[in-house]
């Protein structure tokens, strides 16, 4: 058999895993390594920020198994799965974690908690952990571009579905699985991939659960493959494979998993959120913050109409009556009108703006009720996230503001200083002293030099 034929005879996951299984610290460019560390910093700060939230505490306290692994900011040491679930839920819980432009998905929340837990449990080095994190992040980015939008359309949350495979890829790479074991880990993870979108109906907490559940699923899949459990090699492209089942309306583009591997590290384009709410809302908030700072008088605003991309209407605008009056601080994060109104008054949309009390603030709600949308068929969503507001004032004057893209994304990345500032704000929100935050920041930024991850235990409690 010619080598070209041999290459073609391999399944998609085998070809992708040939790349992952060969990775080491030397083969990962500095820019990708830095992106991995930035994501680790952001993720750690978010874990501290959410450490007292009931949805995190409940899981951490009720988890049945203790072990050698750290859930950042929680006193109990847990087993691998427990630490992965708690860190994953805490990272994503306030919807303040990383995202991807073009094909929206979270990246770090499913991968980093899994790799940290396994590294702690099995004594992996910081360098090996970093390789695993970079591999897992890259896997999520690329798997997500195979059939973007089609998982959502079928009623599934890509964070849960693709997250399980991303976690398996990260953990399997960190553990040094060979190509076929790693491909089987992806096959096993495909049978663990889960997460439906029904939380959209009533703001249930299952959205928060998905990254944590995906993280622990993927690490289990990797450990099963390592133990010799036989998973399907054709789980990605097969007739009953992941994309056929979870994205049946799409025509999968598997070249996303085979082209320019190691040359084009897509995880370098991970976007970091300046605001603690739905990503696509951010440019709209920026418009409203600008108007608030200019001193526009809320009482004189008759109506606010926003041009918007059709794809975000069903999640962020409709049902409009409900979005005008979100039932909780959490639901408020996915209400375009609420986020815009609170940004206008507060000049920010951080964690403090999304408490349950704030979601009942009549001043904010009163402005939110005047905000509506029109679909702009030319809008670039999902390739680019734009913002627009058109205020009609009571005296008939019109004020318009636009944003050409999202701050924090590839077109206007947050700087290291921005991310560190966000990290410290999150740590403070979680009630930690600044010095403890500094120590955690240093741990993250020097992870690649650590002999093992025993230092992580300092950040329990």
């Amino acid at each position, binding site marked *: 058999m010619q080598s070209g034929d041999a290459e073609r005879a391999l399944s998609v996951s085998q070809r992708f895993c040939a790349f992952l299984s060969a990775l080491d610290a030397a083969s990962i460019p500095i820019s990708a390594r830095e992106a991995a560390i930035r994501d680790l910093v952001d993720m750690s700060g978010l874990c501290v920020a959410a450490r007292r939230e009931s*949805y995190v505490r409940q899981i951490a306290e009720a988890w049945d198994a203790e072990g050698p692994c750290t859930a950042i900011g929680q006193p109990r040491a847990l087993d691998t799965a427990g630490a992965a679930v708690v860190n994953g839920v805490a990272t994503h819980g306030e919807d303040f974690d990383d995202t991807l432009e073009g094909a929206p998905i979270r990246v770090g929340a499913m991968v980093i908690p899994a790799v940290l837990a396994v590294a702690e449990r099995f004594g992996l080095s910081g360098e090996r952990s970093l390789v695993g994190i970079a591999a897992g992040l890259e896997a999520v980015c690329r798997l997500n571009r195979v059939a973007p939008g089609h998982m959502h359309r079928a009623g599934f949350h890509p964070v849960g579905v693709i997250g399980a495979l991303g976690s398996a890829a990260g953990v399997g790479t960190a553990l040094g699985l060979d190509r076929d074991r790693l491909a089987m880990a992806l096959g096993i993870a495909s049978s663990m991939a889960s997460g439906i979108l029904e939380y959209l109906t009533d703001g249930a907490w299952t959205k928060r*659960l998905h990254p944590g559940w995906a993280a622990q699923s993927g690490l289990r899949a990797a450990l099963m493959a390592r133990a010799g459990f036989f998973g*399907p090699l054709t789980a990605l492209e097969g007739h009953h494979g992941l994309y056929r089942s979870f994205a049946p309306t799409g025509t999968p583009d598997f070249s996303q998993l085979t082209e320019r591997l190691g040359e084009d590290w897509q995880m370098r384009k991970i976007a970091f959120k300046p605001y603690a709410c739905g990503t696509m809302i951010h440019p709209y908030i920026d418009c409203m913050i600008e108007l608030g700072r200019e001193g526009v008088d809320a009482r004189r605003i008759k109506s606010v109409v926003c041009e918007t991309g059709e794809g975000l209407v069903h999640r962020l605008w409709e049902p409009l009556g409900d979005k005008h009056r979100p039932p909780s601080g959490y639901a408020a994060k996915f209400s375009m009108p609420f986020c815009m109104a609170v940004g206008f008054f507060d000049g920010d949309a951080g964690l403090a703006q999304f408490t349950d009390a704030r979601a009942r603030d009549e001043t904010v709600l009163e402005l939110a009720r005047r905000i509506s949308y029109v679909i702009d068929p030319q809008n670039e969503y999902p390739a680019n996230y734009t913002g627009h507001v058109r205020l009609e004032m009571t005296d008939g004057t019109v004020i318009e503001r636009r944003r050409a893209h999202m701050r924090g994304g590839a077109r206007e990345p947050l700087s290291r200083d921005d991310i560190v500032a966000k990290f410290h704000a999150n740590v403070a929100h979680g009630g930690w002293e600044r010095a403890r935050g500094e120590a955690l920041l240093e741990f993250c930024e020097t992870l690649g030099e650590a002999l093992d991850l025993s230092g992580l235990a300092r950040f329990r409690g």
Partner: protein
Amino acid sequence: MSETQTVSAALAEWIAATSAADLPDAAREAASGTILDTIGLIVAALDTDYGGAVRRAFADPGGATVYGLGEGRAMGAAAMINGTCGHGEDFDNTFEGCPVHSGVVIVPALTAAAEALGLDNAAVAKGIVVGMEVMCRLGLVAKKAVHQAGFHPTAILGTMGAAAGVAAAMGQRPAQIRDTLGVAGSMASGIIEYLADGSWTKRMHAGWSAQAAIRAAMMGAQGFSGPATVFEGTHGLFSAFGPSIEPEFELLTRDLGRRWEMAAIAYKPYACGTMTQPYIDCAVRLARSGVDPASIAEISCEVGEGTVHRLWEPLAEKRRPTTPYSAKFSTPYCVAVGLLFGDAGLAEFTEERVRDPRVLALAGKVNYVIDPDNEYPANYTGHVALTLRDGTVREERQASMRGGAREPLSRDELEAKCAANLAFAGRPRDGVGAISAFAETVMAGQGAFEAAALSRRLSV
């Protein structure tokens, strides 16, 4: 279910209002038989290649029982190993109406939950019956839709059924049960790509669903909120995992507590495809009547057309299956072992047996003729006609599948199956008495749940 009530609220109300004392005898017997059958199957598979792999991967020690192992495992690990091993040989219970394998999800989930949470037998008895009932009824709602969408019904519906069962056993209030079911909907997983290469993920699904269900129930108990409309919502379970049908949720919620679907659970007498079983019955009767396999010249079976493509064709391949697993789906092979060995248990589906020249010679003589009047798929029948070398013809017919609703297996037959499974694994054959007594004790709902002593007895 009232007009404004969600499906999960209707289920939750019924579950919370049901007590172990309300369970009818038929439901208890079906659950007791399922416990007996499931434990035998778990023990039989512990030392297989996949059993070894799942045991190595889920090695965390703890207080939860893996049936047949002397030492305990962590809660989730025990559920995972029990479920994977129980389903491993496709020899576990099934349901006529939708092929959901309830025992291998529900029994492992309730065992691990009971031990982790300190539940008693009354709680476990209720949990097993409720879990099986919800899973079977979900199967009636789903029909073929879950398979059609590329997902494994035992996995998807099993997560929901087991979550309902664990919630029931925990004595959750209706609001907690609704959250449990809502959270479970986000954990339901399992694609059927194993069909491509015979990989082991089908086996794993039962165990994965069992451990997920316990987690969902523990989260629901704490008030972790799940969507209230998890079953019927626009983005709910059925629209995601079974989009080809308009689900009739009445099949799930009507006559709860009055009609018990799980009481009609079907057990497999033989370790192979469901529709092959009545044919094996015919072969076994002919063998017992003293037919000498060497005297057989031809074998012919009347069959329903719908069974041909999976169980008969390509005929040349079906007469020489290459693996024990593919032999399970070859009627010629199954008829041949029935004639030669008078059984088609785990011992008849080994690497050695699929290369046995006596079996292959006999399987090579098996033919089929399509009977256009055959009742398949409404009923599974069997027929074997032998033409002996001296020209005499011997014929047997089986009017329905033994083990199903029309001709259930007796307790004695289930115990004999369990004993054969224990013997196959080299475990004490008389352990079956202890398993049977354990199943009866649990389902009588008296006293504490105590599985560890049984497990030690079954370990070698």
